[in-house]
């Protein structure tokens, strides 16, 4: 039954995949891709899982395809790096049932550690790529991607960006079509990538790319609109929409099947128009290729490779301008009132520890005024960087900090490495039993799966011991002795893990009474502001205010107060 729904790019893509007979889905949470798996997990027809990391997700999803069912992998852009190993070789093996890999890129780093442009992954891996510019297109392309995958025996990448993934639009949805499983027959030449087999597969892959290019040239996903011929624009993704908004009368070649490049279509379009522009976000992916074809084209200044585009910036590009960076005036994000990470960071700050951090809400501990986290590179890098900082700076000065989900993602291997290589020092696992930053997903340490059903629970304490930690202790993150415990473990000549445990406030909404604030005693020294809690702030009148609506009664500010103006409620 046809129905009009308001869907985000993530949801629309997932809906299209569902209707295309999808039976398996795997992902690791990451903005802006998270909602794809969340949407798919609702359907009984789909075996959907949060995998422990993206490499695992990609392999499990590829395995489902080899078994013969339609399967999907999804992650944010940097997740593709983690999945890079199986992804590269899956271009050689090809697929059984249709297999689609979704990358959701984050130009402007709304919630990411870098701005990599994963269109380059298509060229690097030799996999075809589709790129919708809106949710309605994402819905359509998801269906098309499965057909392409099976027709050409290849994984197909769909690339979203934040402005596609998190834009909602009217989408006309329909019913699911059941697809018969492909039979599995052992085929070592196809699925066993030893050098001899892989060499032959590489030869076949180059031929396949040539066929895919023909398909791209005929594809309805690449559309030519000839209007005013004095200005011709080649564009993809959200950049197409910005250009169309600013230059509604221009001629357009809109690329939706972006790789392999539809060379003949590009040449034909270039001949039709007088002045040719490429309008694309981030890297000069299309621009460089059009130049390689020997076509004279105008494109953006290097300065526009940084950040996302907008209609105003597209106008500037065509005017030949250079981008001027404006400092952001947005409020800084902050840990929730009562967040258990705050008490840990406040203790670490007082201990003046050098802290190797990781990816999650707790990365916010790096910002002023806490400033108690000193490195963040990628998922799992707290444990490994802690190992090296400890060895070089002294293990009594260094602490690693990682969340429970991130520890399972790729912290365990680092801990095994630290033990094996005889490192000493302290790793704190901030165990709030939640993957919080991406909007509260379960993980192996929570004992709940993607469908919300109970499952085997990973015991952090035991896996840390098994990995080779000498001392593993667990403590309530709000325990009064937390700071002393951290200090004690830092001074041990051993590899230590402290599991600082308290449920995430996004899940456990229970609250205690706010502290009693004696305004007369307050000298506005600002010590309580150093804990960086949204519930305690300096008012316009210069006085300190405790916001009872926001406060959940964690009392970290009480421990910060030096003049006895704040007390625990009795």
């Amino acid at each position, binding site marked *: 039954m046809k129905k009009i729904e308001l869907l985000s790019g993530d949801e629309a893509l997932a809906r299209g995949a569902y209707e295309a007979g999808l039976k398996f889905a795997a992902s690791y949470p990451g903005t802006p891709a998270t909602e794809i798996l969340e949407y798919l997990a609702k359907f009984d027809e789909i075996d959907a899982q949060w995998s422990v990391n993206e490499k695992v997700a990609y392999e499990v999803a590829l395995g489902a395809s080899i078994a013969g069912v339609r399967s999907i992998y999804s992650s944010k852009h940097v997740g593709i790096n983690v999945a890079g190993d199986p992804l590269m070789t899956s271009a050689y093996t090809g697929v059984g049932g249709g297999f689609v890999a979704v990358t959701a890129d984050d130009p402007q780093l709304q919630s990411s550690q870098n701005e990599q442009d994963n269109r380059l992954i298509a060229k690097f891996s030799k996999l075809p790529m589709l790129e919708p510019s809106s949710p309605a297109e994402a819905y359509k392309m998801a269906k098309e991607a499965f057909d392409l995958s099976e027709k050409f025996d290849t994984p197909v990448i769909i690339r979203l960006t934040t402005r596609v993934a*998190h834009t*909602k639009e009217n989408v006309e949805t329909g019913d699911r079509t059941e697809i018969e499983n492909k039979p599995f027959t052992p085929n070592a030449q196809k699925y066993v990538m030893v050098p001899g087999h892989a060499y032959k597969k590489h030869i076949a892959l180059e031929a396949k790319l040539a066929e895919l290019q023909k398909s791209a040239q005929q594809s309805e996903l690449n559309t030519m609109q000839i209007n005013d011929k004095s200005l011709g624009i080649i564009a993809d993704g959200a950049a197409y929409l910005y250009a169309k908004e600013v230059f509604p009368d221009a001629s357009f070649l809109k690329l939706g099947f972006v790789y392999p490049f539809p060379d003949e279509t590009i040449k034909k379009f270039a001949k039709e128009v007088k002045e040719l522009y490429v309008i694309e976000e981030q890297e000069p992916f299309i621009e460089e290729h059009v130049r390689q074809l020997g076509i004279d084209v105008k494109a953006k200044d290097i300065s526009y490779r940084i950040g996302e585009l907008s*209609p105003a910036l597209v106008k500037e590009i065509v005017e030949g301008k250079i981008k001027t960076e404006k400092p952001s005036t947005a*409020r800084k994000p902050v840990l929730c009132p009562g967040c258990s990470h705050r008490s840990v960071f406040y203790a670490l700050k007082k201990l003046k520890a050098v802290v190797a951090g990781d990816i999650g*809400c707790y990365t916010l501990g790096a910002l002023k005024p806490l400033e108690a986290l000193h490195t963040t590179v990628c998922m799992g890098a707290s444990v490994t960087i802690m190992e090296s900082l400890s060895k070089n700076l002294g293990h009594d000065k260094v602490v690693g900090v990682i969340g429970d989900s991130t520890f399972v993602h790729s912290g365990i291997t680092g801990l095994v490495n630290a033990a094996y290589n005889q490192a000493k020092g302290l790793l704190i696992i901030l165990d709030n039993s939640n993957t919080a*930053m991406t909007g509260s997903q379960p993980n192996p340490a929570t004992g709940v799966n993607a469908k919300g059903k109970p499952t085997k629970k990973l015991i952090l304490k035991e896996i840390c011991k098994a990995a080779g930690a000498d001392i593993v202790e667990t403590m309530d993150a709000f325990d009064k002795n937390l700071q002393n415990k951290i200090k004690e473990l830092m001074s041990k000549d051993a590899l230590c893990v402290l599991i600082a445990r308290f449920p995430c406030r996004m899940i456990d909404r229970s609250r205690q009474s706010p502290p009693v604030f004696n305004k007369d005693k307050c000298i506005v020294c600002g010590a309580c502001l150093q804990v960086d809690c949204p519930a305690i702030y300096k008012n316009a009148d210069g006085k300190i205010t405790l916001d009872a609506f926001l406060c959940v009664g964690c009392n970290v500010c009480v421990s910060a107060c030096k003049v006895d103006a704040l007390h625990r409620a009795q």
Partner: protein
Amino acid sequence: MSDKVINILFCGTGGQGILTAAEIVSLAAVYDGYHTKKSEVHGMAQRGGSVESHVRYGKIVYSPLIEEGGADFLVSFHKGEHDRMKYYLSKDGVDLFADFEDAEKKVQNKKFINTYMLGALSKYLDINRESWLKALEAGFKGKFVEENRKVFLEAAAKG
């Protein structure tokens, strides 16, 4: 239906119900048959940071983003964010900040301030009452239907 695209910018801070409000007006526009786009950012920003949602609807909408100086309506839930985002408002645009100040005084339960703001906004938009009420119910996932309806209609009837 005119070719004019209506641009509504919502802004404030995390946890104020801004994204829900933007969802409801978008749903109402969809129910009324408009092509609608709503764009916002999830993830880190929701941790008490700035939240903004761009809603555009009309016969056909291309860009998901409103341009600076292009918003027909600015619906803000926070003084600081209002002042910061005001440059998005077009010359003839409507600033609903006075309605927010009203809402803070009149609405007893802070949870319903976003509903009040939708009621205030509804006075200016060419969207049917039935679509609004249907969207309210869908947007709040069937919770507090009567309370929301009451607050909405009260704000919509005012002035």
